[in-house]
């Protein structure tokens, strides 16, 4: 592909995105809550589009398409089980929102620290999120680097793509905090979905004879790709080990659970959930069809992660569409990166360096915002540094991200539904769970054949439950917290 086309497309994307970010800046008010949560006043459509863009990263069109290419239809099952995990938001979403507004929480871990009356919980959960999410962020940056490098036949250096991605993410996060992130996310999610659907229909109707022929061709392939375990990758235990951590993604990952604080009202949250479910269903199907199309059109790739880049570079996709896809995938990566950076910076400010105070005066507000901006820069630099090292360690930690973040799930369930849950149990489950996730991931040990995800969830849940039975709960706070939510839920028909 001519390199001038690539540069033109990137420059256009940067200009349009930056205009949107600057428009968000004009609407921005002062204060920490405004910066991190857009003043808890986001409308349903923007919340839905932004939630979608944050959740779905470059993994979908590269990693999931690759899973489909090598493992067949199991990839669809795994990703749809993840999507079904959004049903958790129907229960937890309004609860996060209600208590967040009442107690002025900015980060989900700040909420846990307050609920269990132990600041170390917020500290440990935030530290664990940084350990797992910074490598995940680095892998997204690497994705942009490889994509531009591959599409330009090596003319655009890997480090250049990484640098562009990190600078854009910094700019769009710094310009107006959550407001510029949600607005640019909305634009990017539209780019992601529209472009991927157009290319999919083009490839299937132009090159594969339509959907009926497409499925007939898949059925005729070796390896029974329309069954599980099919070609072999999706053996049941692998499938379970992948699906289980991702089912809890919507409450375990702080960059998405923090979004439960931002809707303007319950109506906006409804729209957010509906919009995301529709977006997720379509985008999942498109990514899986994309992987299958590559399997039919360019069989025999030794590295399945190259299925999408190779398909884009092939004669089956016209240059204009390939360019558009490149922008779509870059948008998916950057919309995830800037959200993670913003959320991690809020964890640094509110939970690591503390401190939660209900009514910050102007100077405290300014100080927190200054720290947040420095934190964004440091997190971005760490991501950049990790990305350009291209270490295997980063890939391992990144895969471990969805597993490592599971450790807060028992504490979140306990916070809302179990008055006897205790701080000691919560803290132990987070620490022991994180150690379990890291140890199993690095040692590649799979006790009884089950992966790190299954064991991490089991260990952290067991520690949480047993620990709560033998230690003392913060009764007064638990009553205050849960009774308030129950009463509000009763009045608002929240199930």
């Amino acid at each position, binding site marked *: 592909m001519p390199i001038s086309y690539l540069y033109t497309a990137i420059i256009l994307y940067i200009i349009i995105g930056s205009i949107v970010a600057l428009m968000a800046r004009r609407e921005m008010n002062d204060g920490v809550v405004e910066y991190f949560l857009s003043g808890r006043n986001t409308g349903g459509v923007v919340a839905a589009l932004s939630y979608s863009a944050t959740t779905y990263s470059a993994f979908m069109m590269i990693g999931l398409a690759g899973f489909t290419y090598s493992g067949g*239809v*199991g990839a*669809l*099952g795994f990703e*749809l*089980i993840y*999507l*079904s995990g*959004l*049903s958790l*938001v*129907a*229960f937890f979403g*309004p609860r996060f929102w209600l208590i967040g507004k009442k107690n002025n929480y900015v980060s989900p871990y700040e909420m846990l620290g307050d609920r269990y009356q132990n600041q170390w919980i917020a500290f440990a959960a935030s530290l664990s999120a940084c350990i797992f999410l910074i490598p995940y962020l680095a892998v997204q940056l690497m994705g942009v680097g490889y994509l531009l490098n591959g599409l330009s036949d090596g003319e655009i250096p890997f480090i250049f793509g990484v640098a562009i991605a990190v600078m854009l993410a910094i700019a769009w996060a710094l310009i107006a905090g959550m407001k510029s992130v949600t607005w640019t996310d909305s634009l990017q999610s539209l780019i992601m979905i529209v472009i991927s659907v157009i290319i999919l229909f083009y490839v299937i109707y132009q090159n594969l004879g339509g959907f009926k022929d497409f*499925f007939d061709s898949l*059925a005729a392939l070796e390896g*029974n*790709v*329309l*069954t*599980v*375990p099919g070609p072999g990758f999706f053996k*049941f235990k692998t*499938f*379970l080990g992948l*699906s289980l951590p991702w*089912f809890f993604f919507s409450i375990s990952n702080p960059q998405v659970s923090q979004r439960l604080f931002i809707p303007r*009202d*319950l*109506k906006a*949250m*409804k729209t957010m*959930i*509906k919009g995301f*479910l*529709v977006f997720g*269903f379509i985008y*999942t199907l498109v990514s899986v069809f994309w992987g299958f199309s590559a399997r039919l059109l360019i069989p025999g790739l030794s590295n399945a992660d190259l299925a999408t880049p190779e398909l884009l570079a092939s004669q089956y996709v016209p240059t204009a569409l390939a360019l558009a896809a490149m922008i779509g995938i870059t948008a998916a990566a950057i919309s995830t990166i800037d959200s993670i950076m913003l959320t991690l910076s809020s964890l640094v400010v509110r939970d690591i360096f503390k401190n939660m105070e209900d009514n910050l005066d102007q100077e405290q507000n300014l100080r927190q915002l200054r720290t947040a901006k420095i934190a964004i820069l440091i997190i971005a630099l760490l991501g950049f540094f990790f990305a350009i090292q291209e270490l295997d360690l980063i890939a391992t930690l990144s895969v471990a991200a969805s597993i490592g973040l599971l450790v807060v799930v028992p504490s979140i369930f306990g916070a809302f539904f179990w008055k006897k849950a205790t701080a000691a149990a919560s803290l132990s489950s987070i620490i022991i769970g994180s150690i379990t996730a890291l140890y199993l991931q690095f040692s590649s040990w799979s006790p009884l054949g089950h992966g790190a995800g299954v064991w991490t969830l089991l260990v952290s849940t067991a520690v949480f439950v047993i620990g709560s039975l033998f230690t003392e709960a913060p009764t007064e706070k638990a009553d205050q917290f849960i009774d308030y939510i*129950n009463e509000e*839920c*009763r*009045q*608002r*028909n*929240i*199930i």
Partner: protein
Amino acid sequence: MGNDKLKKLRLLYVALILLLVLSALTVPYLMLNSINLFRGAFLFWLFFALIVIFLTIKITTYWRDN
């Protein structure tokens, strides 16, 4: 809505969703592993996702802003 009714509804929806997720984990492996066609695991998972999406949206329709 009363607390008891909310609790019952919550149990009902949780049970339904759990059952669906369990089926999504097992049915394609146990019952559809010999159907190498669109109407096998592919269609099953599509239906599974659509039903969970429907139930999730249904839960939100009960909500009322004060």
